[in-house]
Every structure is written in structure tokens, then in C-alpha cells.
């Protein structure tokens, strides 16, 4: 047996990571899925790679570089779409590739080999530091407080922005703050699931939740639960099978989604047949 203490710490780290990832991804994911911002979120995710590259090159924490890049690009797209001077999907597409290009250039220019690069692309629980877990924990608290305090305002603005403008002067403030928090959530979860896969961590749980409910607050709760089941199961499988954790988590979540969807359909068909027979 290997050292128990190492194993114990590793499990705690994984468990806390799963809890915080599910909370942050559940809250942020419900917002982006219902506001149809999934593509924008993909743009933010990939643009943040530019920050990672610059972080490596400049010798600062790449997560900080990614956070700055992610937030700026998110606010930029939100701003451009408000002004409607540019096609939003094109802007996102350009941003997406531009961020990746900057990242690749700066990592190429950085002397020496970057062993952790793959962990940013695909995620790795092995390279997740205590600081990463703490940051995700703080992010969870911030999001819970923010969504708890402003639940209705956030819900109504994202449901019908132009109507909200007739009674609230703060529509843009809320949109920008929420978008910045979403960007930060994505960047912090990159350490868990990787740039390429993190978006699914946000989008699959709300889609599982929406099978059961159409009430916003319940979608959030179900998303967090589904996210936790998916991440913790994926984590355990990845540990024993020795495969990358990000890919395992996403694979698990999609399998859960498919199974629930199929079961739900079968139940619906059976219910229909039963009521038909009764008639």
C-alpha cells in the first residue's frame, strides 16, 4: 500500500473539487443554458487560453492570466452585442481563435518545456493545487450569495431584458457582473476539466435538470446534484482506471444524461398507454 495520508489528502481534494465544481458549474450553467449563451461561454473559455500563454511567458500564475482574459473577452462580447454594431456569433468566433492563437504563440516563445500545458487543455486532478480548490470554494460562496440575494432580478433580466429596462436602471450592471462571474467560474473550472471539456461541465447538468423541472431555482439545485454525481463518479473511475479525469467526468455526465432521458421517455410512453387503456 502507498502512504495512506497521501491517499487521504488526494481523496479530500478530489471530493472538495467535485463539490465546488458542481456548485459553481450548476449556478453558472443554469444561467448560460437558459440565456442561450453556450457559444459565448465557449468563446470565453478558449479566449482565456491566451491568458494562460501570457502567464507562462511572463512567469505569473497562468490562472490569473486566464481570468483576466476570460473576463475581458466576456465583457467585450456582451458590450458589442448591446451596441449591436457587430454580429455576435462572428465576434465570438474571432475571439475564440484569437485567444488560442495568442496562447500558442506565447507558450512557444517561453523557454523550456511546459509540462502542465496538457493539464490546461484536458484538466488533471493531479495538477490541481490547494490554492485552486480554495479559489473554487470562494467562488462557490460568491455565487451562492450573489444568486441568493439577486435571484429575481437576475431571473427577470435574463428572461426579458427589454421589459426589465422599463423598471430597472441596473440592467446593464447586472448583465456585466453576472457575465464576469460566469467567466471567472469557467476559468477556475478549467483546472478540473480542461479548456476543451469545461463547457460540458456547465451545460450538461442543467440539461439533465430540465428533464425533471422547468422552474429556474429547481434547475439550479438539480444541476448541482447531477454535477456532483457526475464529477465524483468520473473522478473515482478515472482514479481506478488511470484515465484523464476531465474526459471521464464529461463521459460520465453524458452517459447519465442519456440514461435519464431514455428512462424518462419510457415512463412517458408507458403512462400514455396506461391512460389510453383506461379510456
Amino acid at each position, binding site marked *: 500500500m502507498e502512504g495512506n495520508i497521501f491517499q487521504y489528502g488526494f481523496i479530500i481534494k478530489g471530493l472538495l473539487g467535485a463539490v465546488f465544481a458542481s456548485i459553481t458549474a450548476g449556478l453558472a450553467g443554469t444561467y448560460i443554458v437558459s440565456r442561450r449563451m453556450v457559444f459565448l461561454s465557449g468563446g470565453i473559455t478558449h479566449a482565456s487560453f491566451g491568458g494562460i500563454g501570457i502567464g507562462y511567458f511572463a512567469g505569473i500564475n497562468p490562472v490569473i492570466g486566464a481570468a483576466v482574459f476570460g473576463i475581458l473577452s466576456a465583457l467585450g462580447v456582451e458590450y458589442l452585442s448591446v451596441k449591436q454594431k457587430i454580429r455576435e456569433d462572428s465576434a465570438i468566433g474571432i475571439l475564440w481563435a484569437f485567444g488560442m492563437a495568442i496562447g500558442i504563440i506565447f507558450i512557444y516563445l517561453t523557454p523550456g518545456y511546459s509540462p502542465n500545458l496538457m493539464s490546461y487543455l484536458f484538466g488533471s486532478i493531479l495538477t490541481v493545487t490547494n490554492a485552486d480548490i480554495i479559489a473554487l470554494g470562494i467562488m462557490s460562496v460568491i455565487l451562492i450569495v450573489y444568486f441568493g*440575494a439577486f435571484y429575481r432580478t437576475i431571473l427577470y433580466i435574463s*428572461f*426579458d431584458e427589454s421589459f426589465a429596462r*422599463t423598471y430597472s436602471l441596473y440592467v446593464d450592471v447586472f448583465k456585466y457582473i453576472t457575465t464576469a462571474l460566469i467567466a471567472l467560474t469557467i476559468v477556475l473550472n478549467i483546472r478540473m476539466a480542461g479548456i476543451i471539456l469545461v463547457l460540458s461541465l456547465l451545460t450538461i447538468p442543467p440539461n439533465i435538470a430540465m428533464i425533471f423541472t422547468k422552474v429556474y431555482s429547481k434547475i439550479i439545485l438539480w444541476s448541482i446534484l447531477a454535477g456532483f454525481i457526475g464529477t465524483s463518479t468520473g473522478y473515482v473511475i478515472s482514479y481506478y482506471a488511470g484515465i484523464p479525469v476531465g474526459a471521464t467526468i464529461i463521459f460520465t455526465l453524458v452517459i447519465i444524461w442519456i440514461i435519464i432521458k431514455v428512462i424518462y421517455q419510457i415512463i412517458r410512453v408507458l403512462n400514455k398507454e396506461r391512460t389510453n387503456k383506461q379510456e
Partner: protein
Amino acid sequence: MSYLLEMYSLSASYGTNMVLHDINFKVNESDFIGVIGPNGGGKTTLLKVILGLIKPSGGKIIFNNDLINGNSIGYLPQISTGDINYPVTVADVILSGMMISKRIISRMSVSDKKRAQAVIEELGLSGMADSSLNELSGGQLQRVFLGRAIIGNPKLLLLDEPGNFVDSTFENDFYEKLRDLNKRMAILMVSHDIGMISAHVKSYACVNRELHYHPSSEISNEQLLAYGCPVQLITHGEVPHTVLKIHS
């Protein structure tokens, strides 16, 4: 008599394009005014000026204190911009009309929820409080948005072409409902469909860059010249109609 709002030589523009010019207009608390005129004539702009979404480029608009404090103006937009596939319930949408008098951080109280329930029943949406919008018919959807406009008990209700998405079976009920509401609030109803404006309207405001007010229920063929081309009313008889006086 105290007016809910008064406009004096008011004008409004989009950039250099003046949409409303020299508007003098008053609304009192029992008014039910049909706002008619051609597309692009400035009807919706007039509502947006009242809502404060567009600042007048000239002249002034004076609101009665009732309109400034608390629940003031209810608004039913032309087409709902809300995404009907958004995960939001009927009760939630109606409650969102309360936000006008709420601080951004406050939660809905039990009395707010009771009020939402009362509005739901008043508008014939009983049992649908927890339905999502994509389960509703067009007429039900419109009643939900009307509920959102009236839950705050506004003194003034603005309706922007409500006929556009009313289903015909509900249309009569809808205008009956407006007549009831008019007992407790003034109504300003925009319609481009002059032939189909409700008989419950008490007076008319013709808007085509300028505004001509017809205090009583009168109508004129000349008034239709606001359309910029000769038009006529087509009916099969027996339809009550009103003739307004020529614009002076």
C-alpha cells in the same frame, strides 16, 4: 381635474430623425385613449417617452406624483421579447411586474404571491401558475403579460398593439377585461389597425409625427389621411363606428 401626465410642445428624435414634434397631450385618470396612426408615425415612441425609455429632445413631460411614486405605469409591449422557452413559470412572469416598486435585492413576500394568485384568477389563468410559457396558447400568453402589467395596480396602463397576438376567441374577453381595468386605471392603447379598435375606447389620439386629440368618441374620414393615402373603412353594416372631426 388632476392629470396623470401632461406633455407640452414635446418632441422626440432618433438621432437627427424627429419622430414626434410639438406634442401637447394630457391624460387623466379615467381616460381610455386609443392611440392610432400609421406605422412609423411615432406611436410606440410616444409610449417609450412616457415610460422614460426615450428622453424628450424638446418640450416637457410632467407626471402626477402618483406616477412617480411606487407602482406607476403598467406596460404591455408590442411583441413580447421574452423567450417563451425560458425556464420561468406563469406566476414568476406575473410577479416580475412587481419589480417596478421593489428594491433590487428584495424577495417576494407572501402578500405579493397572494396578489399574483389574485391576478392569475382575475385573468382566467387558474391552475396555470406553475406552467411554463411554452405550454400556453397565444391568448393565454397575452393574459400572462397583461397580468405582469397590472399586478402593481398601476394608475396608467400602456398597451402596444395588443390585438397583434390576441387569438380571436379571446379578443372580446380581452377588451371586456380592459373595460373593467379602466374603472381603476387610465389606459393608453396603441393600434395601427384603425378598423379594429375596440368600441370601449373613450377617445382617440392620432399620432403621425404630430398628435391630434379627439376628446369624445368621434371619427372622421379626414383623420384617416394620417395614413398618407386615401383609405376607407370596410364593414358589413351593423358595426358601430365613430367619425372623428377633421384635424384643425
